């Protein structure tokens, strides 16, 4: 069983907070301790209000860190009370955060890395691209959104020279249709697929990768009460388990990036 990651609680100061697409915000938080160690696929938990409502912290993947300047960024979809509070935060406001949480993900050393993102699922994939300049030539980034309004300006969020293909459900930007339809044409021998996005999309990605016998990793977003392995709430079912207690495993602790072929979708 993986160890509890060493995380810290920190008062993070909002350095910027603005929309990058319809209902989607980019927030930069000054938080030296978290920024110092945060790795791709890890996440932070934000207390969106100092009172009791919302009650639990809200988890967000890290997009990009500047370890020297001591900040990191997140991108969030405004979908409920917690993210609504975040959306009205002004520069200088503070949030109590925990992090970094979850296991860092290190991509394989060789072969193509096919990154398949949907909506705000772009975040951990973008961090991977930022964090591994040495692998960028092997990366192909496929990005899906409902429509153009919901598609951020990816050039501003990704490192330069990354091969990028867009898809929207209504065709207003890029390929018309699901981003999963783009996978086939970008598979080369020795491709690893890494995905984050809506559950149904990731399940589809895993299926396609499975059919082609490609390794596949997915960053899950199960509901989390604690984020640090204490509640056993955020579990996902594994196909194989030697003992009953290993049938369900904690996404916050073993993931959020998991082997997409090992779990029950």
């Amino acid at each position, binding site marked *: 069983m993986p160890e*509890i990651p060493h995380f810290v609680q920190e008062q993070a100061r909002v350095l910027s907070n603005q929309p990058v697409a319809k209902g989607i915000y980019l927030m930069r938080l000054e938080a030296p301790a978290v920024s110092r160690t945060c790795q791709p696929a890890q996440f932070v938990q934000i207390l969106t209000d100092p009172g009791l409502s919302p009650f639990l912290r809200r988890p967000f993947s890290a997009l990009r860190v500047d370890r020297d300047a001591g900040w990191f960024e997140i991108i969030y979809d405004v979908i409920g009370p917690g993210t609504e509070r975040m959306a009205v935060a002004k520069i200088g406001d503070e949030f109590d955060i925990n992090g970094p949480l979850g296991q860092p993900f290190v991509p394989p050393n060789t072969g193509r890395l096919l990154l398949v993102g949907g909506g705000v699922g772009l975040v951990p994939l973008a961090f991977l691209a930022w964090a591994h300049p040495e692998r960028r030539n092997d990366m192909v980034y496929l990005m899906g959104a409902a429509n153009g309004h919901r598609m951020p300006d990816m050039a501003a969020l990704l490192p330069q020279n990354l091969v990028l293909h867009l898809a929207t459900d209504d065709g207003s930007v890029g390929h018309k249709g699901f981003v999963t339809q783009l996978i086939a044409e970008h598979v080369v021998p020795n491709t690893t697929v890494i995905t984050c996005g809506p559950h149904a999309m990731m399940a589809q990605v895993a299926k396609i990768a499975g059919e082609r016998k490609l390794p596949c990793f997915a960053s899950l977003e199960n*509901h989390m009460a604690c984020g640090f392995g204490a509640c056993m709430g955020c579990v996902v079912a594994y196909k194989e388990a030697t*003992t*009953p207690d290993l049938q369900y495993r904690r996404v916050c602790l073993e993931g959020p990036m998991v082997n997409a072929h090992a779990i029950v979708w």
Partner: protein
Amino acid sequence: MDLSTHIGGGLKIKNPVMMASGTFGHGAEYATLFDLSRLGGVVTKTITFHARAGNLPPRTVETPSGMLNSIGLTNPGIDAFIRDKVPPLAALNTGRVVSIAGTSNEEFAEMARRFNDLDGVDALELNISSPNMKDGGMLFGCSETAAHDVTRAVKAVSRLPIIVKLTPNVTDIAAIAVAVEEGGADGIALINTLLGMAVNIHTRRPVLGNITGGLSGPAIKPVALALTWKVVNRVSVPVIGMGGITTVQDALEFLIIGASAIQVGTATFVHHSAALEIIDGIADYCKAHQLANLSDLVGSLQPPLGR
């Protein structure tokens, strides 16, 4: 100032603040998070005789000032627990309480017996109150006879102090408390979670895979306090109060009405070191109110003005 307190069967802990079962793993794995020796005690996640997978996800959902969980006692079973979890637990310098749940009096007793020869476990907490266990669990806690008998069965074989944890989902919790006291319980802990439910109005399905779950967090604190009050008025063994304790104010309310100790559960999920802040806060309060011993605070409730 002396914050130490007795929680039953001669077990004295250094301060009245413990980590509640199921909300802090098996305890020892959080040694990197903060200094566990500062805690009064740790209660480990409830174990059962056989390993259990637990319930179908989703298992948690937020509710107003609280949350529902339907974890379902995921655990590796008693053998693996004793092999893998007890040694690191035993190494902790705090009150080490192991929570157990059986499906019969015999199984409870058999589990308790296993701890007789082990070092490093200071007490057992009998979970007769889990709403997430279909066979046993809360069933024992819902009847005076069943609660009494399981306590007696465990007491007959165990050499450890026995704390019995009660469910709030009953008509007369004080009567259950009296029954377990008569069964020989050394201490009583309460409350476990309240039965609750949530529905996703978009899919028109229960949010939890298990349909219902247990409600915890600040929302239930008033209920926990009333039930603890009912129990302390009826039993003479130490009572450990819990349910929604998040701040030092909450903890003080329980101590003032007569709880000898308190447990912190859900609050840890939001503020992982909530328990430490509560310990400091209790010390500050005692100092400000010139209370030399925790016992001067415990049960110091006065009647309402005008009564």
